[in-house]
């Protein structure tokens, strides 16, 4: 995938400015930035959505073909799959899980039921049957979302803030499953997060965004050991929880 000089705006206010990114197949890329940095807008543009932010210039190449921007109903999701940040964002609470699964399978034109069953068992999930979302634990729901994303063997998997709405137990479970499956099926992963420590743990390459621009990007280890931009430096310095040094409390007194 390649993003070239992408800009987007909401009601005349620029959200993305000249964002360019490249992703190799099977690469795990993390997009890191604070709230309002334009991470979600970028991710929505990759999925071809034009709301709320409308792309004004630049284009996205995926698998060598240019991607069109369209309304959600017309968007084709060929080769790109999306895992929302929590089951609350991903499931209709009033529909049975089986129904939601089948509907997606129809839309994605996936026919082989044996293949579908394989995905479920690979993630350690039973057949959804007649269950409603709330009858499953949140960990299972999130794994089912992952299974749904993997249904038609995508080339690119998008993870939206995989840890922010989940307990660490579930988040770690889901991410490790994702890593295993992505490696197995040669899927590229684009992860959006505000947590650099998480990005460093899972991603091979990191792009840091601030106010709609990519201020720095590079191989995780190199970026972490030698950040160039002031904002990246600050993020790197504060990536881990650190006990407040005694001298800080002295200074305050």
């Amino acid at each position: 995938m390649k993003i070239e000089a992408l800009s987007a705006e909401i009601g005349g206010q620029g959200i993305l400015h000249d964002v360019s990114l490249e992703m190799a197949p099977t690469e795990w890329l993390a997009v890191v930035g604070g709230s309002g940095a334009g991470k979600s807008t970028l991710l929505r543009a990759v999925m071809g959505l034009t709301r709320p932010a409308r792309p004004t210039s630049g284009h996205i190449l995926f698998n060598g073909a240019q991607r069109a921007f369209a309304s959600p109903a017309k968007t084709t999701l060929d080769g790109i799959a999306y895992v929302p940040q929590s089951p609350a964002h991903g499931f209709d609470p009033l529909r049975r899980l089986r129904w939601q699964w089948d509907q997606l399978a129809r839309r994605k034109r996936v026919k082989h039921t044996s293949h579908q069953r394989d995905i479920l068992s690979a993630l350690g999930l039973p057949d959804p049957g007649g269950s409603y979302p709330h009858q499953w634990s949140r960990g299972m729901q999130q794994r089912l979302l992952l299974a749904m994303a993997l249904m038609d063997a995508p080339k690119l998997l998008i993870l939206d803030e995989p840890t922010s709405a989940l307990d660490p137990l579930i988040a770690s479970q889901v991410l490790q499953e994702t890593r295993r499956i992505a490696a197995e099926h040669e899927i590229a992963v684009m992860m959006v997060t505000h947590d650099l420590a998480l990005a460093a743990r899972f991603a091979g390459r990191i792009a840091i965004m601030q106010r709609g621009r990519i201020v720095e990007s590079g191989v995780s280890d190199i970026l972490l050991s030698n950040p160039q931009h002031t904002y990246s430096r600050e993020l790197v310095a504060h990536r881990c929880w650190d006990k407040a040094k005694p001298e800080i409390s002295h200074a305050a007194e």
Partner: protein
Amino acid sequence: MPPNDPVFQLEGLTVRAGDKVLLQDVSCDIQQGGMLCVIGESGAGKSTLLKAVQGFLPATCRRLVFTPSGTDITGAVPTHPGLPQTRWVMQDPLAALNPRLTLGASIQESLYRQNLTVQERKSAVLAALEDVQLGSEFYSRFPGQVSLGQAQRACLARALIARPKLIFFDEPLSALDALVQKKIARQMEVLRRKTQTAYLVVTHDLGFAAAYADKVLVLRMGQVEAYQPCDEFIAAPASPYAENLIEAARSLGTLSHASEAA
């Protein structure tokens, strides 16, 4: 270092809703200027614990002692009075602040019961804002005009200005960015040491707990899974569930520093 007398002691707190037991026999205590982190997945009863202790929910306990106000309760926790000399900091600062009051006015409300002149009140608020590293220009700003992190700092100032002995934090950082989280956590720690206020923090961030808490209480489905000093908890968690939690936090990279030290 905090002296060893507990400001807050809780023994055998149980909360029921109908036939369901929401919290079963929870005991904990907090030293003066100490910090207890309550950890658990959603639905584990973390917020229920806070609400029950404050008297927002019917609950029973063997004993609840809050030294500064002389509160000493046995049996049913009265649902009205709550605990005097305690304050709250909530998860979402924009929901906690009145959008139609300036930050200065919101913070002042903590002082209305003390007989201060307008001038005294204003200078107290400005000092409190300075404590959380907000300049005097924030006095007249509305919550909608500041960032989430700044709004949460204002909430912290509002809690601290009343000089409480204990502050309850309900997921104070989870609405914020990773970078802002760390800055505010540090600010909380600095002010805790300076004012010797005890903190009871509900969180699901183990990294935060490992860095700052004295003691950790792990809840799961209303049951206590572990109640240990923080270092001991990281090195030798008391239950398999707690061990899984620590393992998960390590695999997410949130616990790396503490684990390297251990």
